[in-house]
């Protein structure tokens, strides 16, 4: 039974940026289950390239990608007006000061939470 948020993101094209193999796999499965199309990247360089070129409705951004910070990707997305949600194992308040208050998920998270945050963030568009 699909909830309201679930239906809100159904059919969206999502950029998933996550370097953790297991997590990426689970997330991808989940998103697909929710009816999303997934574009994925494990490294900043690739993610930036995708953010510049791909047409997506929203993005899930892991903050730490093999030692690199995801902020260049966020910047590009902001530039293009694409909404995104951070995912981080750190406290959400340790985000860079420029991104304080932006939607974020604290790992590990419940699927429901993720869907709700995504629906909130992406639906605003």
């Amino acid at each position: 039974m699909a909830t309201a948020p679930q239906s809100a993101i159904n059919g969206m094209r999502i950029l998933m940026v996550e370097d953790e193999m297991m997590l990426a796999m689970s997330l991808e499965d989940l998103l697909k289950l929710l009816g999303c199309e997934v574009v994925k990247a494990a490294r900043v360089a690739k993610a930036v390239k995708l953010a510049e070129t791909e047409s997506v409705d929203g993005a899930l951004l892991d903050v730490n990608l093999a030692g690199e910070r995801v902020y260049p990707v966020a910047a590009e997305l902001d530039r293009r007006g694409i909404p995104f949600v951070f995912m981080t194992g750190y406290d959400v308040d340790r985000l860079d000061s420029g991104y304080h208050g932006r939607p974020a998920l604290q790992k590990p998270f419940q699927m429901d939470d993720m869907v709700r945050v995504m629906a909130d963030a992406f639906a605003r568009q």
Partner: protein
Amino acid sequence: MNPPEPSPPLIVGIGASAGGLEAFRTFFRHMPADSGMAFVLVQHLDPDHDSMLVELLQRETDMPVAEADDGAAVEADHVFVIPPNASLTIDAGRLGIEEPAPPRAQRRPIDTFFTALAEDQGENAICIVLSGTGSDGTLGVRKIKEHGGYALAQAGADSHAMEGMPHSAAATGLVDEVLKIEAMPDKLAGYRSHLHAAAAHKDSDGTRTDAREHLDAICALLHERVGHDFSQYKDKTLTRRVQRRMQVLQVETMPDYLKRLQKEPGESDALFHELLIGVTQFFRDADAWEALRQQVVPGLFKDKGAGDAIRVWSPGCATGEEVYTIAMLLGEALRDRDVRPRIQIFGTDVDDNAVNFARTARYKSLPGVEPERLERWFVENGDAYTPVKSLREMCMFSPHDLVKDPPFSKLDLICCRNLMIYMKAELQDRVLRKFHYALRPDGWLFLGQAEGVSRHARLFATANKKHRLFQRRDAPTQSMHDFSLPGVAPSTDARRPAPRPTRRSEDDRLDRYARQAMQKYSPAYVVIDRHHEILRFSGGEAGPYLEPSAGAASFNLIGITRKALRPAVRAAVQKAFTSGRAAIHDKIALRVDGEARAITVIAEPLDADDSLCVVAFQDAGPAESNKRDDQDAQPGVAELEQELHTTRVQLNATINELEATNEEMKSANEEYQSVNEELQSSNEELETSKEEMQSINEELQTLNAELTSKNSDLNRANGDLQNLLESTEIATLFLDNDLRIKSFTPRMRELFHLRDGDRGRPVTEIVSRLDYADIKRDVKEVLRNLGMAEREVRVEHAEATYIMRIRPYRTVDNVIDGVVITFIDITDRRRHEAERARLAAIVESSQDAIIGHTLDGTITSWNGAAERIFGYSADEAVGQPIAMLLTADQSDLLPEMIERLKRGESFSTQADVVRKRQSGRRIDLSMTVSPVTDREGVMVAASTVARDISERRESEDHRDLLLHELNHRAKNMLANVQSIALQTFNSAPTPEAFKDAFNSRLTALSHTHDLLMQSNWRGAALDELVARELAPYHNDRQRQWTVKGKAIKLNAKAALALGLGLHELATNAAKYGALSKEAGYIEVKWQTRGGRREGEPAALHLTWVEHDGPAVEKPERRGFGSRLIEQGLEYELDAEVKLEFKPSGVRCTIDVPLDAATQDGSDMEIS
């Protein structure tokens, strides 16, 4: 009279000291450049500096101004200035320079020059004393005046001028005018023109020739006004002194001066003082005084007992120098004697001022007094010397007129030097006779160089011709007629002519022989004076006519003439003196050798001098016999004659009796007169003593008042001292030279067991609590070298320490009289010092910077840690504002900090500062700022303790980071586990299968973690990773796997991913593949090689090949394991994975870019 020759210029000596420059300037501003005078300036100059005086003065005058050169002739209209460090003199109109100047104490350049100027120039010398302190110039003024020069002194004082010198000069009373500098040039010009005008009236030695006729009038006027008769002074002396006054007043003629004298009462005083100018000084003519000391002084003490007095009279003593000189000589002689007679020296003078001065005895300088004498007999009293008491007590001063007042008596010595030179001969005679009277037999007379007693050899014997020492001869009773008594106007007999010298011609040898030859033919005679005193006998032939009478020896002719001759002699002498002609009485019967002779008495006044008379006795042959007369006479006549004879005899007897009585009366009269005279002397002496006593009394009263006041002062001071000593609580001990206790303060009792009764006992007898045995030695040491001794002494058996100081005790007279020992308790100080040292060590050794500073932030102390932390040394920091330690962006914190401090708050704060040295890097500080208060709680300063917390801050940050990382990792791991669980769950057919698969996966994950932990998450070796995954799989014989490959270290991320991948491969092999059979085995190998394609980076190429397992079928469905291997590795490591299910066995190849597998990212970043 010749027109005056171009006379030598007047030379004006000007002396000045402090404030002199301005005075000089003023003077020359008003002095015309063609005055015809020469100026010599004497200034007190610093010997070490060049003087600017010449330059400065040249601006004020058109006259050439130059520094004086040695030998330079003094020319008119020139100004000469004394050079620095030199003495200036003048001789024959040429300047003399002596270098260097005498030592400062004896330097009186103005006196030196004035004296030379006076002696060289006489009345052409002018001296001016201008501004200055002290009394230099005063003696010079005296000299100038003695030599007839002219003296001026500056009047008053403005802001520049100092009145010490001019005041001192004016106080001599000798300065002609005291006036303002501006008025001086006019006066000088006036004086000059007067000198020129007066020169016309002067004879060769500069005495006016027109004065003599007026002298009587002047003397009479003076006698009337001031009561002193100067008519017996030498004309020349009088004239010169009058002349001086005329010069001063600039009066041209004697009549004018006389008028002035009559009109102005003050002038008679001025002239009087001018006449009395004394020229006296200590030991004047030192040789003469030495002669006196050797020849006379010892004799004075002969036969004198302790109760006797040595009496000395110094008439005309002026300001007393001579008197004190005698007193010094006698005082010195007295010192060597056991028996010490009293010494009385009477100093008398007509001049009251002089006498007063002598009584006061304040001498500004004592030339002629040797330093030892000065030391012994004088004390310095302010700016003057006064004689010591013992010297002063010998001397008595009183006003006395030698001419009209009776003399003192029974004197041992009369010292009258340079007084008689002013007197005419007749007055000199009288004075000498007075001296003769006043001296006791063999008494001494000491006269000046130019004086003598040659005409009174009968009265005085010459003892030392050169130095004018004379000794009284015993002469017949002195007639007192010559002493004018008080109240008898001196002028009545004063101006009679003096006796002419009579002996000189008689000394002629021819005369003498002739006289001897003629003696037997010529009559015997005597020469007498008006008073019948015999001055000369002719020889032995006078014997028959003279007959010494009983009683005191006498040379009175009437007294010693034979009685038969007396009436005739008396009558003849009287007649001769009265008539001035010879008087002859003849045929006076006298029995000579039993034979009646007729004697002729001739009295003949001497031609030259009517006060003398020759009385000659001539034997006119045998007396005519009376018998012849008798024969011729009638009997009645004979009777008558007989009667007459009887009557005559009676008359003669009566006359004789009368004469004898008369003589007796006369003698008695003289005796009375003498007694009276003596009484007068005594009276005078008593008067003197009385005045002296009065003056002493006054002095004593003054002294008494002074002493009373001093006494109360002393009492107060004593009280103050007592209180001071007690309040300071300093134990103090006063000892005399023999270590006896003089006094002590109460605190002393704690150190020595002292009682009040111990005063006077030696301190060494008293038990001391001090651990100090050397007191005697130390005191002696202090007394010997007059230094100070300081010891630290401890009290036995107690923790008390004292600083003991021994100093010599100096009385107010600067005499050492024992020692003062003070004990200062320093026990507390010692303790505090130790405590302070301990605290200082703590502060210094602290790792925290401890900075003391004032309330407004000035650094006052700085410890070693502060130097280490801030990089400033203590020297650099102390005194600087504390703000310098803060960075610019924090300096605005300071005012607030100081404000809080001032409110008394103590607070901590954090601050960044920049270290000054060593790269200026910022350091983090924790600072605690606290006010420092004194005992009353008043804030006096502040301290700041600063701790360098940079490292702590870093480690805290590091810890935070670690905590976050841990949190992150744990959460990541949980997310991973979550995913694994989800995936496993999705692919597991049964819960048991899920449990096995999930467990084994977590175990594999855990193994990889273990490996990574070993290297602290820096990575893991690939062979170990493989071995760990395959370790469970071996049978009994052998391992079922082989590993081959170069050692390579994977980073954590690659290790985890590959670990999971290998685990899936191994699990699959155990379930379905090679490991499920005993013979099966797995071959794992790897190598590194270039990129898969051209230009690609190097890669790790790993192959997994299974052998001898069961036949493999390609699975229908891709499980989690396959997906993880194929997609996960590819996704996460950017690897290329090929998984083949060949029938011979599974084969898997994995190509991982080396960068991704081995690059050592941060060990933390494993998400």
